[in-house]
């Protein structure tokens, strides 16, 4: 207790010096925790956005070859799929079925643009409804046939407002052209964050009719899991079961082959991903997970984390050099005091502990300051609403940046800092402990 008290009070002896050193430590901690929170928040936001927009965590796309040799996207043979679904039923919270127009041309008056339109079973997709951020109009009558939800960017481009009618020109599953009339029910804010998707939504029954599917047919079966961590387990089970009877493609295989096909299917859509070289019988399933889609993002996050860690290590090395020099000075300044303490019966280990504890307290004060600074910065930044066409658009959650600071990562950084501090100060501390009492007492200071 005595040692601890002396160490703590020693910090205040040279206030300016302690403040500068603590400040440098705080800055390093601030950088790593803020970047860590940002990347964690960004990953989570992207996962949430993808999950809500795509309607789940695992996406099963069906493709069939018609007698004419034409390939259509439809899950026709549901028997095999239902058997496979049984194997993961315990992990699934909700099932969502969807059909999709990959690239439709939306026309209003003389203006037109392209839009991906997903057919949604609105009764079952409450999560999507909850996530959509309505700028104009409402989702009250969304279940009415032909009701359409479009992103703000598309609405602005066309100059359309809720209640007005638009036309969408699209390809049917068999490749024929068709045009459907839709009424804009709502304009949403968030989806234009995913500018590479520009997704609109309408009722699945209505869309099926337009693209040539039966009302109960669908192209995608999306699984929303109870526990996102079990995504790969569930996908593995599905693949194992489906492979017994059907052709199966997975995101992982695609990556191994370097074709990046699964991403293409989900993000760019279409048949381009599935080889049409060899016709097949029955439904060919393509299973993609959120992890497959997130892979490039996760790589970016990893790079950001490595960069921030490198920055932290460099900052810490500079700070540690400062700490070593400071404690060498402290040793000179307090030589006589060390001699006195040793003379009146303090053991070498305790002298060493005073030095180490003093450095540790300084580092921990710096760490606390850095953590508080990081928290305040992330809270304040998190309150700022960014415009939807901001470069950060992809990482926005309801127009705001999301920061997630996990206690584990904070503890890890603090432990790392503590170890580095103790290692840096160990030599001056050891030197102090090994001073000869008589020489220390003769010192000027």
């Amino acid at each position: 207790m005595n040692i601890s008290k002396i160490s703590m009070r020693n910090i205040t002896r040279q206030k300016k010096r302690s403040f500068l050193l603590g400040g440098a430590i705080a800055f390093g901690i601030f950088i790593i925790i803020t970047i860590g929170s940002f990347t964690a928040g960004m990953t989570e936001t992207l996962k949430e956005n993808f999950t809500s927009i795509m309607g789940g965590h695992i996406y099963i796309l069906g493709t069939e070859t018609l007698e004419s040799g034409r390939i259509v996207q439809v899950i026709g043979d549901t028997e095999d799929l239902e058997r496979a679904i049984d194997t993961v039923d315990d992990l699934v919270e909700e099932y969502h079925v969807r059909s999709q127009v990959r690239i439709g041309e939306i026309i209003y008056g003389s203006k037109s643009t392209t839009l991906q339109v997903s057919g949604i079973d609105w009764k079952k997709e409450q999560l999507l409804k909850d996530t959509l951020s309505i700028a104009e109009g409402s989702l009250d009558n969304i279940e009415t046939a032909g009701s359409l939800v479009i992103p703000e960017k598309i609405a602005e481009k066309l100059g359309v407002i809720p209640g007005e009618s638009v036309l969408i020109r699209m390809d049917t599953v068999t490749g024929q052209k068709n045009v459907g009339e839709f009424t804009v029910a709502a304009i949403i804010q968030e989806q234009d964050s995913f500018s590479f998707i520009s997704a609109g939504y309408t009722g699945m029954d209505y869309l099926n009719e337009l693209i040539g599917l039966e009302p109960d047919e669908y192209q995608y079966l999306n699984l929303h899991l109870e526990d996102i961590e079990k995504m790969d387990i569930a996908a593995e089970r599905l693949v194992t079961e489906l492979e017994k009877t059907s052709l199966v493609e997975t995101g992982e295989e695609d990556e191994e082959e370097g074709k990046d096909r699964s991403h293409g299917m989900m993000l760019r859509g279409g048949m381009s991903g599935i080889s049409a070289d060899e016709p097949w019988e029955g439904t060919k399933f393509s299973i993609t997970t959120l992890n497959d889609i997130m892979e490039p993002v996760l790589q970016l996050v990893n790079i950001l984390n490595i960069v921030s860690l490198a920055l932290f290590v460099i900052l810490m090395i500079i700070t540690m050099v400062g700490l070593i020099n400071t404690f060498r000075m402290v040793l000179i300044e307090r030589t006589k005091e060390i001699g006195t303490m040793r003379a009146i019966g303090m053991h070498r280990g305790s002298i060493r502990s005073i030095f180490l504890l003093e450095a540790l307290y300084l580092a921990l004060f710096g760490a606390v300051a850095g953590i508080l600074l990081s928290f305040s910065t992330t809270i304040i930044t998190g309150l700022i609403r960014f415009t939807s066409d901001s470069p950060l658009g992809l990482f926005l959650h309801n127009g705001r940046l999301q920061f997630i600071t996990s206690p584990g990562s904070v503890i890890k950084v603090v432990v790392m800092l503590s170890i580095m501090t103790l290692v840096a100060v160990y030599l001056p501390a050891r030197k102090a402990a090994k001073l000869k009492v008589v020489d220390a007492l003769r010192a000027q200071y």
Partner: protein
Amino acid sequence: MTVISLKDVHKNYPLGKTEVHAVKGVSFDIESGDFISIAGPSGSGKSTILNMIGCIDTPSEGIVTINDTNTSDLKDKEITNLRHDVLGFIFQNFNLIPVLNVFENIEFPMLLGKNPAPKDEREEWISHLMEEVGLGEWKTHKPNELSGGQRQRVAIARALVTKPQIVLADEPTANLDSETGASIIELMKKMNKEYGTTFIFSTHDQTIVDIADHVIQLKDGNIIENRRTQA
């Protein structure tokens, strides 16, 4: 009863390429409860002898024994324990810990032992000592808020707090005016009588030498006089 014994003690220091013979074969005994002055001019070897008795320096030759233990045979941990348990120190420059207040400075040696006394007991004993040295009102003051004489009183209380057998004071009055210096020696004498603690102090001031009941006079590292002033 002999508590300290020096037998043919030499101390040599290297000084550049030469060697300085600070103490040249000194022998004397100190009895328990003595109030001893080691006197002599600057450079006569007073501090060196006190350092060797205080186990903060070792003799180049000869033997220093404390309670029949040869201090040269002890390891650092044993010497540290011996310093803590048997000896108390008063320094010329007071050497208080600047970050601790008066009470904490006095308490400091008590907390270094293996089994510190309970808090209540410590507080009672320290308060008593503070009253004895005349610092009852200065409990929470830091050393830099005290005068030289007050600081030396704190140092005296700190030296006595572990109830040591022997207190060593290296020129305790050197940094004080003569009146304050005399009062410090008086205080030490009072403590010597009250607690039976053996006090050994070094001084070059002849006016306070005779307060001691045993005077060892040094010159150039040799004893030139070893006398008892009282029976």
